[in-house]
């Protein structure tokens, strides 16, 4: 789904990422890695698989778009102990797959930026060997401001945190899907992680909602 916003051509992708082709940049938010593991540690029997699928999806979309910058808008990990060995390993593999061989120049490297979210804080910085660069909440990038949670005032905000979902109802049927929410001032991303809940958003004036279904993005 193509969209022009703040004068830039953007693409809302079904992988739950926002693609900015001119700058070869992907935006995503709310992966909540390690959430299932945390549940299991506390005796709640949640199966895994979702996380591996999420990371595979991330690798695939980075490869398909040829992105050179990955901007993670917060909540990369779920909470205390979120950087489990599984997560570190998986994330390292993601970087390695995209960083290319040493012969390729600095320009071809996949850089990963992280705007820390409320879930990231208790864990301190991600392990140094992953090479993730921390950027401050509210940092400007072109016409955009990178935030985890919307501040409700500034213009051009791209953010996550809210995990928006939209619910469609048919006759006796009900469909719930993550969505992008776009208005004049801000662009809200769906949660990237599969094992994340959602807050229902409703349609209202001046706000456009794009639902993410199986392999496609729909304007609602």
């Amino acid at each position, binding site marked *: 789904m193509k969209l022009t916003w703040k004068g830039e051509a953007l693409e809302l992708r079904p992988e739950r990422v926002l693609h900015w082709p001119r700058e070869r940049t992907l935006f995503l938010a709310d992966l909540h890695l390690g959430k299932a593991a945390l549940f299991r540690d506390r005796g709640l029997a949640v199966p895994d698989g979702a996380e591996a699928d999420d990371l595979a999806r991330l690798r695939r979309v980075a490869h398909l778009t040829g992105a050179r910058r990955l901007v993670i808008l917060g909540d990369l990990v779920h909470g205390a102990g979120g950087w489990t060995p599984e997560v570190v390993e998986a994330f390292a593999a993601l970087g390695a797959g995209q960083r290319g061989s040493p012969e390729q120049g600095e320009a071809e490297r996949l850089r990963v930026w992280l705007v820390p979210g409320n*879930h990231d804080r208790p864990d301190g910085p991600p392990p140094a060997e992953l090479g993730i660069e921390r950027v401050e909440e509210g940092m400007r990038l072109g016409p955009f401001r990178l935030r985890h949670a919307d501040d409700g005032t500034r213009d051009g905000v791209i953010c996550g945190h809210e995990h928006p979902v939209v619910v469609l109802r048919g006759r*006796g049927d009900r469909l719930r899907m993550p969505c992008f929410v776009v208005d004049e001032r801000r662009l809200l991303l769906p949660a990237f992680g599969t094992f994340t*809940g959602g807050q229902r958003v409703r349609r209202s004036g001046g706000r456009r909602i794009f639902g993410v279904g199986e392999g496609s993005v729909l304007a609602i």
Partner: protein
Amino acid sequence: MISTPVSLPEWFRHRGWAPFPFQEELWEAWSRGESGLLHAPTGSGKTLAVWGGALRDGRPAEGRLRYLWLTPLRALARDTVAQLEAPLEALGLDWSVGLRTGDTSSHRRQRQRTHPPTALVTTPESLSVLLSYADAQRWFGGLRGIVVDEWHELMGSKRGTQTELGLARLRRWNPGVPTWGVSATLGNLDEALETLTGGAGGRIVQGPERPPPELETLLPDDAGRFPWAGHLGLQLVPRVLDRLDGGGSTLLFTNTRSQAELWHRALADARPEWVEAGELGLHHGSVERERRLEVEDALRAGTIRCVVCTSSLDLGVDFPAVDRVIQVGSPKGIGRLLQRAGRSGHTPDGRSRILCVPTHAFEIVEFHAVRRGLARGRVEPRRPLEQPLDVLAQHLVTVALGGGFRAPEMLDEVRTTHAYRHLSETEWGWVLDFVTRGGSALQAYPRYHKVLADDEGIHRVPDRRVARQHRMSIGTITSDAQLRVRYLKGKTLGRVEEAFLARLRPGETFLFAGRTLRLVRIREMTAWVRRVRSRTASVPRWMGGRLPLSTELGAEVLETLAGSGAGRESTQTGPDRTAAGTNGTRGGPMAELEALAPLLEIQGRWSGLPTPDRLLVERTETREGAHLFVYPFLGRLVHEGMATILAWRFSQAEPRSIEYSVNDYGFELVSDEPLVPLHGWGPLLSPEGLVAHLLEAVNAAELARRQFREIARVAGLVFPGYPGSGKSDRQLQASSGLLFDVLARYDPDNLLLTQARREVLEGELNLRRLRRGLETLQSRAVDERVTPRLTPLAFPLWADRLHARVSSESWRDRVARMVEHLERSVEAGE
């Protein structure tokens, strides 16, 4: 004060009572070590009948727990303790009676652990918690008797299954311990006994036979003008007030909490002086416990004139001061009316009386049908649950905490219960795997283990945090997230479902706990409110409010209609004769039929009357399209399934869009073009292919996803959080819907998913009743009528469907217009 101990019969004599034969029968049986079920209505001396078995034994307690008394309601527990204590001193028994519920202070709990009372009164949930302590066997190992009060109330729910498992555990430690249940009238007492004793059987002791309650129906002055639909019934408030003015104490039962709020408001508006004097009370499950206890105390003291209540007061100890019971709206089941009528019954002739207040015209039929059913002794059964694996998973963790278990012995123990008597090795293996390793999908994660077998093969819970978490989550009743409703000044009024409050904006008003409240703000699970004088307010609608008509009552309604012959009751109809004295009087059976006559006459003239061997089908056309009405009289849940199936089968023959609505009498299908059966009604109503068609027709996955909410909690997949810990456990919050999705994708063989699907088919879609319903219809001849307009039977269905679709204001206008139009047709003699 009696100084020398007396015998139990002497104690009875001192009080001017003589033991009833059934009481002596039970005491004897208990002495011989038998188990069984006492079939007795409330207020018949049932507590003493059972407790007497223990008292006669009278051995010293030796500082150990000897008797366990289970009760479904915390509110009941308090009064039960007092009843059990009453005879102890006179009998010279040095026994103590303890109370243990979720409300018991931690100090007292601690003391009970070290100094057990002789008898403990508790709930199924608290029993589970007690079973989870490491020294449970020592604590419970000396039992001489177990009593399960109001077993009929527990049996049909997951709490009943939890009780079955708990009893199996206690029987293992105390082989042959006498176990007695107390049950009100049920259609399946034998099954109730089997379920209680884990198949061991026992004796059914018949309590005192009571004459059936005397029903009086409050009939509107002009039944012809009485509304054909609606469910509030406030038209009859002035007539009800006439009765209340007479004095005495009255329980006024409504079917839903919303209706209770509205009736309370209507009575308070009419008699503000009663409110001033504290003579008008409100009692339902969402009202704060303190407020409810105040009302109960006033009832006991006889200082209150009228309490508007819901099923919250169905059960429990007697309020001897209550001399009148009023039922607003159809009770939807014969057993329920019997139970409610029994809340009074201190008339000189021992007969309880109940005043029935219809909320719309057809409820007069339902009251009449209840009367018929009662006269024939027809009462609904309640079925125990089959094999809910979530409850078993929870129980295994409980037992692993409470001293641990060895797998083969535990399987034997579990199979002694009625619920799990057919549990297969595979299912057992899966549940065991689920609590130890989280199921097959988690095998790759060695860090996960809730329950772990030690070197000797005993399954235990090694992690203290998991242990604490589990004790917090014990319990099988689930409900929606509830917000506390609290004044800004601090007093808490009760709890309301989040779903209702989420729709309100600050500044809007609502009716709750008998007051009009303005919402100020919602913060941290509390809705802060201020009291206002405003008259207009919305009323919370609680989930699961409406009860479906029981099969038994549905059948009686059909027979009533068939026997009415459009108003003429056949003189041979035996049952009504039993209500002799009141037969011809106002509010008696004849008066009911007279009041109904004009309505049934219109129904008969415009269309026809359904009968037990004729399925009435009506067609009519309006601006909206072609309507098809079908009246099986099998209750709303069955009709929901039938409407779905029929709509799907019609649309398979010819693609089209069909809307439907259902009520307890039938259902309506609406489409642009008339819905005509191409190959007759047979295949459309056939039970053949039922499951496959149903799964095609409904979004079963979505229904199962909703059903999973309860299962996930019971099985310990979600953690409800520590009370008062606020946000600290946020990181462990996941909705059950999300878990369902993750499991469906990454652990599709999880048997809890299978259980959710089964519960949807059996519970929500009511497969068993639906299949039986369709089979019943096979034997009825279809009587198809084309009607010029909506008939009295059709109108409520039409109005309900409209209600679901349009805003309430315009709904009321449209219904009012329609009523006027229909009335004109009646007056014009059409």
